[in-house]
């Protein structure tokens, strides 16, 4: 589909190959036959970890820039901060892609590939990555939440609702998070429908209002250990 995605997949499969090669080499008693390889390098697991941690740092930076943008005093400053945020997300994307290449079953890295793509507005790529994370671990609820937000970006309302209900049943705190994102999404689409008409937004807002009430009322239902009440 898009270049970015094709790139990720290509790198991933390339490196999967490389990794298994390296693993094969490693399994052999260390002998002279592998002397063509670079001297014993950082193992892929560790590379993955390093890239992942670097990615987390980039995400933090991106979020800081976004915060700067939010409180910027002039449109120019805002644009500047947003540009920096975009760069940081791009950097993060590279780092997480590298992590996932070194450790293809690293669910967290795939999750963040989705996250960074979503913040770059690449919703389709983002979805792709979340789907992959969830195929590795269907109970990785953070990815369900993020994917829900990606669905919103693509105006896939019914899929977003399904994500919400899945979280409501199995990971209540994350459902609250998605709910907030949904409320924000409604506000955004009111300003710019991005292909949706007012009636569709109205219907979703009605649904959302009722779910928000249910969530507020039944906040104490999910927790078996704390007395919480609706204030």
């Amino acid at each position, binding site marked *: 589909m898009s270049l970015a995605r094709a790139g990720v997949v290509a790198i991933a499969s390339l490196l999967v190959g490389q990794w298994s090669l390296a693993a094969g080499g490693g399994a052999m008693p260390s002998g002279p036959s592998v002397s063509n390889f670079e001297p014993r390098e950082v193992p892929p697991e560790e590379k993955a970890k390093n890239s992942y941690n670097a990615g987390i740092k980039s995400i933090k930076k991106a979020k800081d820039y976004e915060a700067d943008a939010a409180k910027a005093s002039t449109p120019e400053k805002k644009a500047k901060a947003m540009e920096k945020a975009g760069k940081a997300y791009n950097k993060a994307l590279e780092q997480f892609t590298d992590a996932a290449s070194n450790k293809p079953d690293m669910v967290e890295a795939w999750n963040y590939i989705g996250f960074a793509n979503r913040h770059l507005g690449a919703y389709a790529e983002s979805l792709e990555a979340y789907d992959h994370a969830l195929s590795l671990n269907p109970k990785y609820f953070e990815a369900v939440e993020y994917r829900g937000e990606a669905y919103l970006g693509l105006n896939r309302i019914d899929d977003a*609702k399904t994500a919400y*209900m899945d979280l*409501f*049943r*199995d990971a209540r705190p994350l459902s609250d998070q998605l709910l907030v994102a949904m409320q924000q999404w409604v506000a955004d689409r009111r300003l710019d429908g991005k292909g949706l008409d007012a009636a569709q937004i109205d219907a979703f807002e009605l*649904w959302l209002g*009722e*779910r928000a*009430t*249910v969530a*507020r*009322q*039944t906040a*104490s*239902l*999910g*927790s*078996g*250990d*704390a*007395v*919480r*009440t*609706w*204030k």
Partner: protein
Amino acid sequence: MVLAGSAATAAQPPAYRWDLPPGFPPPRVPAGNPMSEAKAVLGKRLFFDTRLSVTGQYSCASCHRPESAFTDGRARAVGATGRRLNHNAMSLVNVAYAVSFGWTNAGFDSLEAQMRRPLFNQHPVEIGLRGREAALLRELAADPAVRAGFAQAFPGSANPISLGHLIQAIACYERTLVFARSVFDRYIFDDDQSALTGAAKRGMALFFGPRLACAQCHFGLNLAGPAAIAGKPPPAPIFADTGTQGRFKVPGLRNVALTAPYMHDGRFVDLRSVLDHYEHIERDRAPGETLDPRLRTFHLAVGEKQDLIDFLESLSDLQYAGSAPLH
């Protein structure tokens, strides 16, 4: 959990598969009595087995009838020998999540521990097994189906038919009684916004809202206060004085429309009377009785009382009626 010790566990039965309704995590199970299908099947048989009782006519199910959400419809339960107990029989639906057992703080920390009371209690007699333990085990051993049931439930045991195993099996069965497919559940977990009537939704808002604050005590999955969830340390139980002359366990409100009469002594015949009581709790307070501070003083408009009743009725789920005796 499942992954641990692949070779060593080869001889063990496959991990128990819970059949849980949406939104319900697995309940906490004591390490000494892991769940198994065979145990639950045996436990179900024993739960309904009248040979356990001193008269040969009584079983757990005499006071915990499936069709009444495992209660008996009486204000206070009546034991095998006809003596009246002090308390109302409690529902066993979703009892797997309970953190305390019985109306008062009797100190039982598991279903296994609790079961000694109905089995052996003599003042008054409930089942009346005391002194007849060996005779019962001999009688059960002579029944081929039951003997086979114990052997399957406790494979590898040198002495499968024992009192300890009987208790474990019944407790295991009790833990399978997890049901939550009421219209309320369809509304909140299945996103069926038309499952609840407008009146029930208004009642729900009252119940959970700050004015009545019923959920200060009736919270958690079963509207029963703290719940015991697998993998989490068990939370402390709560007992409260709600103007009934004592501190009692917060009962779950699932299926409450099917479990009249109400309160620890069955003093109220219907839900309307319970709500009247909460509404006039200050007025009816016994001299010197200290009410629980979580209780609110409120007045309900006529329609509101019915709304609340509609909500409480929406918590009924008739699926457990399918837990009828085995034959």
